[in-house]
């Protein structure tokens, strides 16, 4: 049981990360991640929708007929996202203004329907919600990392606009690196998002490759010591 959860955790956060490996949900990833806080906001919204929809779909998977499953999934996802959108509009109105159209667009986010089809419709609810949580967290971490890189390069700050999410007391969270920094505007524009994501994917592959090399080296040395 616990090994299942651990596999889901490593899948969602690293091995099968929706942002870096499946490359799903690129549209919000490119458009929203101009700073860390936008990434965190949209990431949380996606995470919440993923967890809830995965749970509902896993619970109802026995009653949904195979032929019409996709429309039913979309209905479930759309209602969940609408509820989340209304909640954000009510409690974090400024953030809602920033994220704008991208919250309702979570309905069409390939990650949500992808996990519903690939995982939740085939697995019991106690696994499905956890998968949603992990995939959502993995996506959110990528959004925040990309947002952080772009914000740092374009504005020379980190955690700007934190008050949109955490209230006025969070204004102090913003870290600024020198006021005479000439922002690299390109990083905030769409090309910056593509270049940044490219570097993130390359970085992940590099780490994986190094790890694989180390593992084969270890296996070989183990074999050598056995044979001698």
């Amino acid at each position: 049981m616990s090994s299942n959860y651990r596999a889901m955790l490593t899948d969602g956060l690293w091995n099968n990360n929706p942002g870096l490996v499946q490359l799903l949900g690129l549209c919000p990833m490119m458009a929203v991640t101009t700073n860390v806080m936008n990434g965190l906001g949209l990431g949380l919204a996606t995470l919440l929708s993923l967890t809830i929809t995965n749970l509902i779909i896993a619970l109802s998977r026995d009653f949904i007929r195979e032929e019409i499953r996709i429309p039913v999934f979309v209905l479930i996802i759309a209602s969940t996202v609408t509820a989340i959108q209304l909640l954000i509009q009510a409690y974090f109105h400024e953030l809602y203004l920033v994220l704008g159209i991208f919250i309702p667009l979570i309905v069409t986010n390939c990650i949500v329907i992808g996990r519903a089809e690939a995982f939740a419709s085939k697995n019991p609810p106690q696994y499905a919600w956890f998968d949603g949580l992990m995939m959502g967290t993995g996506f959110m971490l990528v959004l925040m990392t990309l947002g952080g890189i772009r914000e740092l390069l374009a504005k020379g700050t980190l955690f700007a606009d934190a008050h949109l999410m955490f209230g006025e007391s969070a204004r102090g969270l913003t870290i600024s690196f020198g006021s005479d920094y000439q922002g690299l505007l390109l990083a905030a524009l769409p090309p910056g998002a593509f270049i940044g994501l490219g570097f993130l994917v390359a970085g992940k592959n590099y780490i994986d490759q190094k790890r694989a090399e180390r593992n084969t080296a270890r296996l070989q040395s183990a074999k050598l010591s056995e044979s001698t």
Partner: protein
Amino acid sequence: MIFGARTSTFITGTNHLSQLMLQVIYALVPATLVVLYFFGWGLVSNLLLSLIFALGLEASFLKLRQRPISPALQDLSITVTAWLLALALPPYAPWWLILVAMLFAVIIAKHLYGGLGYNPFNPAMVGYAAVLVSFPLQMTLWPAPLQSGFGNIDFIQALQSVFASPIPRWDAYTQATPLDHAKVNLGLGKTLAEIFQQPPFNGLGSPPIAVVNLAYLLGGLWLIYKRVISWHIPSAMLGAIAVLAGIFWLINPNQYPSPAFHLFSGATMLGAFFIATDPVTASTTLRGKLIYAAGIGGLVWVIRTWGSYPDGVAFAVLFMNMTAPLLDQYTQPRVYGKRGKR
């Protein structure tokens, strides 16, 4: 004993990459001297910093990629990239601006795609476009020709403006470029006849930038004579600009500048002879070259006339770079001896 099998043709070719690149640098000499005369230390600092950053980045990235370093540096291709960027950037550009441009040119445009010969985009223009989009303020601050030459700004002031903040009253040394000036004033509803009576034109048909363009034209013609570049790309690009500008100029000469103005302003000649002809990123078939270059020329005129930037050579070249593989695919020449289409 082993005798190597040899085939005929024992004439040693002189078209090694380093020799080609050396000839490109020779061709840049007249323009470099003219720019040096107009902008003084501004070009010296641009050139030195560009070369230092470019060679340093190239060497360190080759080391990172575990490739031989000295052959790649000796083939001079990176030197040409640095030289072109130094001429394209505004004189007295701050050191960090040049560094960012070189980071994009050498690393993102060249080495991430696999190094020389594999890059789909012209490295110098990627670097230029990246800083143009990112730092519009610094990139539009062109010092006025002659007023910022050796006589008016000394070495210390130049150092100060490159490594610290702009020198005091820097505004006094800067001036809108002819293209920029014409664009802004056309936007204000003035006619070209009025605009050409004011500075920086003062009724003159050829402000200093036209002389710079003439110098590029001279070097470019020498390159064609030496067969380093073929005539197709420059003539198609300049022809497209001249035809488009000519048609609209005939329709309304007060709104659309003449072909001569377009041909001898901004980076037209630099682009036509030195940028668009980059053998790696241009189309390679003859018909492909004509279409590719005409596309650049047309886009340059369109961007200058209706775009938000005063000049558009960099964007036009990058845009047509994207089409080069497709053009090559569809303009393959007919194989000798084969009938009909291809």
